[in-house]
């Protein structure tokens, strides 16, 4: 093996040890021990191949075939960031460039008693014990190479805390920008969000790429949802034709809490989203909505988990996709109902429109139910556009292409309507309209 072709795994491991060697006392901290454990797990697992059950339809060979600069500096300023055309809204806007939180570019308008937002490193400096205990707490059992890799290489994401009983009226929008104008860039942000009892908050994570070199994002977000809290969380990906994205959102819900997730993949070469929700309380409800529009040779994979651990809770899931050209879609939805989780209601549905004979969609609902008094249902459909509806519209003078766009927009509408941050929803409506009209 020539030095040219040292694989990404080896490169990353070497890099880790090199950095560790120049650390001082910090190397013995609990935080670093967790990172080191992450590395060990990554080393053991390696990047998954399609032989791995969870990666059967998603091949990362292409993703790991090149190297990325995980420490790329970017000169990008606020003017360029604001230029990324997102509707204006009064909101807390947090910018991340190449995976690192940029406090100086960010705007926080909600008062400190309602919310504290700081870079993970800052938060750790201020309260090492607390932050170290939160770090990787929810993902500690994840037997996943990418999550382990993120743990080992965690970059400076944010730590967000919303105290008990606070209702944050302005949404918190996390904008991740990969600056791939000069080189292949990698980023591995880790965000920890802790929502206190009976607190209310709306969050969005938005991913963009600048430039057309490759970008590789490996993000992990851990969300703690305390009793009676209400959290709306949206993830929007509108990245480049050369963007590779693997992301995990890990959620733990306690008694009486409500969690809404909306995951929308507008663009990107390769996308894998893991959304794992543990309903670790009674009378919780979790809602998962998803939308994806791959075209060309794009690949979008959504893996979701609703893990019911306690009785009397509900999960409800609806994913929809429109696939064109030679694109591929994957949906894998797991519902676990643990032995204690009697009186669980769990619903799941995945609907797809496949517009080209060369596009494929793999759907796999996976229900593992260990309690007897439960209501679960799941269903998937994959079909073409409704020809009857198309003819009906055309017979009224609507052109074929316009009729198609209307029908497809209507198909997406029930998911789009679930997005409760106005600027994000409007942004989606605009981009989706353009996307659907473009062919």
């Amino acid at each position, binding site marked *: 093996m020539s030095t040219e072709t040292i694989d990404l795994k080896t490169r990353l491991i070497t890099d880790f040890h090199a950095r560790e060697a120049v650390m001082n006392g910090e190397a013995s901290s609990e935080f670093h021990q967790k990172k080191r454990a992450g590395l060990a797990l990554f080393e053991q697992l390696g990047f998954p191949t399609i032989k791995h059950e969870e990666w059967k339809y998603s091949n990362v060979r292409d993703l790991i075939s090149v190297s990325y600069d995980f420490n790329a500096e970017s000169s990008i300023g606020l003017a360029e960031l604001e230029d990324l055309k997102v509707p204006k809204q009064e909101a807390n806007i947090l910018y991340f460039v190449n995976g690192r939180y940029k406090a100086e570019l960010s705007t926080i308008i909600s008062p400190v008693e309602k919310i504290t937002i700081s870079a993970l490193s800052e938060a750790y400096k201020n309260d090492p014990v607390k932050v170290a205990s939160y770090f990787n707490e929810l993902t500690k059992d994840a037997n996943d190479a990418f999550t382990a890799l993120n743990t080992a290489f965690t970059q400076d994401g944010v730590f967000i805390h919303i105290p008990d009983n606070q209702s944050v009226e302005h949404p918190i929008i996390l904008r991740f920008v990969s600056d791939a104008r000069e080189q292949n860039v990698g980023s591995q942000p880790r965000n920890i969000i802790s929502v206190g009892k009976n607190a209310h908050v709306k969050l969005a994570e938005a991913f963009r790429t600048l430039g057309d070199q490759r970008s590789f994002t490996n993000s992990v977000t851990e969300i703690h949802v305390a009793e009676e809290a209400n959290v709306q969380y949206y993830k929007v990906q509108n990245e480049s034709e050369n963007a590779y994205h693997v992301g995990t959102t890990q959620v733990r819900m306690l008694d009486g809490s409500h969690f809404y997730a909306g995951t929308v993949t507008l663009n990107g070469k390769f996308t894998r989203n893991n959304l794992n929700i543990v309903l670790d309380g009674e009378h919780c409800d979790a809602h998962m909505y998803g939308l994806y529009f791959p075209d060309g040779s794009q690949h979008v994979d959504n893996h979701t988990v609703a893990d019911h651990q306690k009785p009397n809770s509900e999960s409800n899931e609806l994913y929809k996709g429109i696939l064109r050209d030679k694109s591929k879609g994957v949906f894998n939805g797991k519902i676990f109902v643990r032995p204690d989780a009697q009186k669980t209601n769990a619903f799941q549905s995945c609907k797809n429109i496949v517009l080209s004979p060369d596009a494929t969609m793999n759907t796999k609902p996976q229900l593992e139910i260990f309690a007897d008094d439960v209501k679960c249902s799941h269903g998937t459909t994959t079909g073409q556009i*409704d020809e*009857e*509806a198309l*003819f*009906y*519209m*055309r*017979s*009224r*003078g*609507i*052109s*074929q292409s*316009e*009729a198609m766009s*209307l*029908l497809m*927009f*209507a*198909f997406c*509408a*029930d998911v789009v309507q679930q997005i409760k941050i106005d600027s994000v929803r409007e942004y989606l409506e605009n981009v989706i309209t353009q996307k659907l009209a473009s062919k």
Partner: protein
Amino acid sequence: MLSINDLRASIEGKEILKGINLEVKPGEVHAIMGPNGSGKSTLASVLAGREEYEVTGGNVVFDGKEILEMAPEERAAEGIFLAFQYPVEIPGVTTINFLKTAVNEIRKYKGEAPLDAAQFLKMVREKAKLVSMNDSLLKRALNEGFSGGEKKRNEIFQMAVLEPKLAILDETDSGLDIDALRIVAEGVNSLRSPERSTIVVTHYQRLLDYIVPDYVHVLYKGRIVKSGPKELALELEEKGYDWIKAEVEAVG
């Protein structure tokens, strides 16, 4: 206005229309009757441009233009309207939004500027009144969960908005209660003019009491086997189709 000459059409290799001839002049109302499965809806669909049917012979000239090569939306823009026997439910698209798109696409085809929201709403309100169409239905998804009668009324409402030159009503009377039948028929009549023509497909005389036809045709096994004045419909109502079938069989 409409001239159908020896029109033949088949589906899945089975010939359904076996040489239809029909002349409709401006301002005329033609009723088409005939037993179930004789090809009435097929004829209506072929005229509107449904692509599943393969036209195997003949031609159709509308307003001086050959239409069989035209896309359904072009025919609509040229002024052909089909009120469906079974209107389609379209979740997620409101009736009002659907119609606005239709109106403006047709205007674009004709080189006219689109109607703005206010102009459109004003026009739609007037037309809705014409067929006593409830405002709340307009805001709902197109035909989704509409009752059978509401769907039929919605067809006539759309016709009123689009003001076609040729309206083809495929069993618009079925599923309507007596009051609705009268309202729908009045809606159709109010659009009648010396330039507009109507083809009414129906099984029953009661619609023809309101929309009085100039001619009545009987379609049987893919052919028009009998044509006559409006009294023919009354005769059919009284005697059924057996005598006509017998006449056809006798000729061979």
